[in-house]
């Protein structure tokens, strides 16, 4: 019922979509996978009307259509569930749900708020979310926002007579295991009404949910796989164009850490809000993974170590020395490096070059009396671009124009080149494609070999299990359980889930 025929899209000299054919049948769930830069997001933007193709046809029920903007696509029943953070925080939940579609609730130009709240409750019920529709969105958790996002798209059910096509862009990246299950259940239920296009980097999820999977590479569709006709490895092979190491998490390279060198010690640290009496120790060469649901306090603990948050009580020691007045600057001086989750907001400075980004945390080293030696900076950047195999025209390239994986490599290089030996990695592989993920995993092992201690908040439980020496399970801001993860004695996902919930 929805079909793309021979779609081409170019940006300047870049051929982003090459003659793409794509179709979705009624009630079908179609997976869309590919590495970053393979053209997935461009294709999605064409589907929901944000981009107009240079050539080719968009057909709905066999009739050619053209969308000048997302609004027109929406009117034809095409809706998009964005990744986290696409709700407007200062509006209420119900306003977000009906944003751009509020006309039905106005009487003589004024809103009938009660009617809107009623309708919003109905939408929220569809996604089994029990929040006050009048509450401001800024107070919701990530997972709740994701469900509101879905509820918002599901308003198309009432608005549109015909079939719906709903795009899900990385919908599971901020969800807990349970929430993912709920989401999948919902999606399956809804197939009687809508078709779905499901985009994710988590291959297992795509395999589980999709009826068919489109595999993209370099702007073209390279394979279409029906359910059960292929394996994760095979698809990944097609996507990446190279074979994936069986040793995905480089487990063979996991060596015992040095229990004598204590890099970070938290002693009964409490923070305003949710963190209560958290104690932990990070040793040299150790990968310590914090596991927990959204809001369990993983990020807050990392930010405490980095000095961005000050504990109400308890003490923080970096390399044995107690921290008196925590600031990021102080932490950086002690060798702490922080790879934040919001890479584009906190990780890199878009608009600055690669070398400027790399030395941002360590300008003092490249300056005498405040005057920068840019020659040395550039040399450093060239060296690390090579070492990390960052794909960029030169060290003068604007970081904002790099792909996600390369941006992450710049962030990692920034800290590694500065000699940081306490690394805080908050979802370091979020949104990265497989190739880039593996590069990150390799780097984690390299760092461990160098005696770097790593505190990690992993994207998935598998990643946590695969990478860690130690796993600390957090629940509601408190340490629930600690697992030893020496190879061979690693806990199972079931063990972790059991502790989390």
């Amino acid at each position, binding site marked *: 019922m929805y079909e793309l025929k021979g779609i081409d899209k170019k940006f300047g000299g870049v051929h982003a979509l090459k003659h793409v054919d794509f179709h979705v049948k009624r009630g079908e769930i179609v997976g869309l996978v590919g590495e970053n830069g393979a053209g997935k997001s461009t294709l999605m933007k064409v589907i929901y009307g944000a981009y107009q193709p240079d050539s080719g046809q968009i057909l709905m029920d066999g009739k050619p259509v053209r969308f000048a903007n*997302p609004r027109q696509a929406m009117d034809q029943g095409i809706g998009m569930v964005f990744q986290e953070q696409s709700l407007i925080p200062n509006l209420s939940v119900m306003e977000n749900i009906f944003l751009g579609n509020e006309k039905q609730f106005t009487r003589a130009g004024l*809103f009938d708020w009660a009617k809107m709240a009623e309708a919003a409750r109905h939408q929220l019920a569809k996604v089994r979310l029990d929040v006050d529709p009048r509450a401001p969105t800024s107070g919701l958790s990530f997972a709740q926002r994701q469900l509101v996002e879905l509820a918002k798209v599901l308003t198309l059910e009432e608005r549109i007579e015909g079939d719906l096509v709903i795009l899900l862009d990385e919908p599971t990246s901020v969800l807990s295991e349970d929430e993912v299950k709920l989401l999948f259940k919902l999606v399956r239920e809804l197939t009687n009404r809508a078709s779905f296009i499901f985009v994710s980097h988590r291959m297992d999820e795509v395999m589980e949910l999709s009826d068919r999977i489109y595999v993209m590479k370099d702007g073209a569709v390279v394979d279409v796989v029906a359910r059960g006709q292929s394996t994760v490895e095979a698809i990944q092979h097609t996507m990446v164009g190279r074979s994936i190491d069986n040793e995905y998490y480089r487990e063979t390279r996991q060596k015992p850490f040095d229990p004598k060198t204590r890099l970070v010690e938290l002693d009964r640290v409490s923070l305003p809000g949710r963190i209560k009496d958290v104690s932990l120790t990070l040793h040299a060469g150790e990968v310590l993974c914090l596991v927990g649901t959204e809001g369990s306090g993983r990020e807050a603990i990392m930010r405490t170590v980095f000095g961005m948050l000050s504990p109400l009580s308890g003490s923080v020691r970096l390399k044995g020395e107690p921290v008196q007045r925590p600031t990021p600057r102080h932490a950086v001086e002690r060798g702490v490096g922080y790879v934040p989750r919001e890479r584009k907001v906190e990780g890199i400075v878009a608009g600055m070059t690669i070398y400027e980004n790399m030395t941002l945390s360590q300008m003092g080293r490249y300056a005498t009396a405040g005057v920068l030696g840019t020659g040395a900076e550039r040399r450093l950047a060239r060296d690390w671009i090579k070492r990390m195999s960052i794909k960029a025209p030169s060290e003068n390239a604007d970081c904002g124009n790099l792909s996600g994986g390369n941006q992450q490599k710049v962030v990692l290089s920034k800290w590694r080149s500065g000699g940081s030996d306490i690394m805080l990695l908050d979802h370091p592989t979020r949104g990265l494609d497989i190739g880039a993920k593996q590069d990150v995993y390799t780097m984690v092992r390299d760092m461990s070999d160098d005696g770097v201690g790593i505190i990690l908040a992993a994207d998935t439980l598998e990643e946590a299990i695969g990478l860690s020496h130690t796993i600390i399970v957090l629940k509601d801001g408190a340490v629930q359980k600690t697992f030893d993860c020496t190879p061979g004695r690693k806990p199972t996902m079931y063990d972790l889930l059991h502790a989390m919930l």
Partner: protein
Amino acid sequence: MAKRLLTYENAVRWAPLLVLLALMLLFTAINPAFLTERNLARIAIAAAPALMVAVGVTFIIIMGSIDLSMEGSISLTAVLFCFAFVQFGGTLAAGAWLAVPLILLAGAGIGLVNGLVHVRLRIPSFMASLAIGFVCTGAAILVTGGDIVKIDDDVFRALLTWRILGFPLMVYVAALGVVVAWVILSHTRFGRHLYAVGGGEELAHASGVNVGRVRLVGFVLAGLFYAVAAILQVAKLGQAESVTGANFMFLSITSTVVGGVALWGGIGGAWNTLVGVLIVFVINNGMVVIGLPDYVQNGMLGVLVIIAVILSTDRRSISFVK
């Protein structure tokens, strides 16, 4: 769900009003003449035109933009209003009331041009509106040749002279303006879209909000309110000239921020602006009424404004300001 009254959020939300009350108490304590009906009416008269300007710019600030065109816009519409008023008979009893819709239209037109330059030419609103302000002031000079245009119509001037419950008519007009703005901002699609654009422009766009049009209408509405301000200003002074709009720019923007409207968009509303304008005018009036030396007044205003803004900022919700 038991609601606690003494939360941080509530303290921040009501801070501007508390500041206003505290200032009034302070001035009254020093000179009881401050809290008399006559003086409150004086403050209201002085504040009425400025209130309309501030309400106008509130629309713009809520969507995260800024408008600096008000001085020129008010000068031009005030001058044109006087010309039109005289042209149509010079008294409301004759056909001069026609000048009112005409000038509201003119104000909206200026806003439209402002919005078009900003949205279509993709020039940041700060620069676009600044330049449009120059053009409007220039146009006001051009049409007046520098002269004063007077309106001598007792019926029209009833806005200033006719009092109900001690307050002149123009105060009620301004109050009505605030109510209209409140209804628009809080209870209409367009108003909520302003908040949506201020809270996240790209997200609003992706939800099918026509951001360009919202911006455009926002500027038109602001222009409309500037025109109302111009008419009230003419009613207050009985004359217009090319400097009639002078001093409104910093005054109105400061007032909105003092009232708790965030300069980065998406937060605040018509009531905040009302309280903010009152704070600024109570300070201005109070400083003279308590006999503060004139050379201290500018500095004192600055200090009090900073204090008011500090108190009404929810510092937990923001990581930095610029």
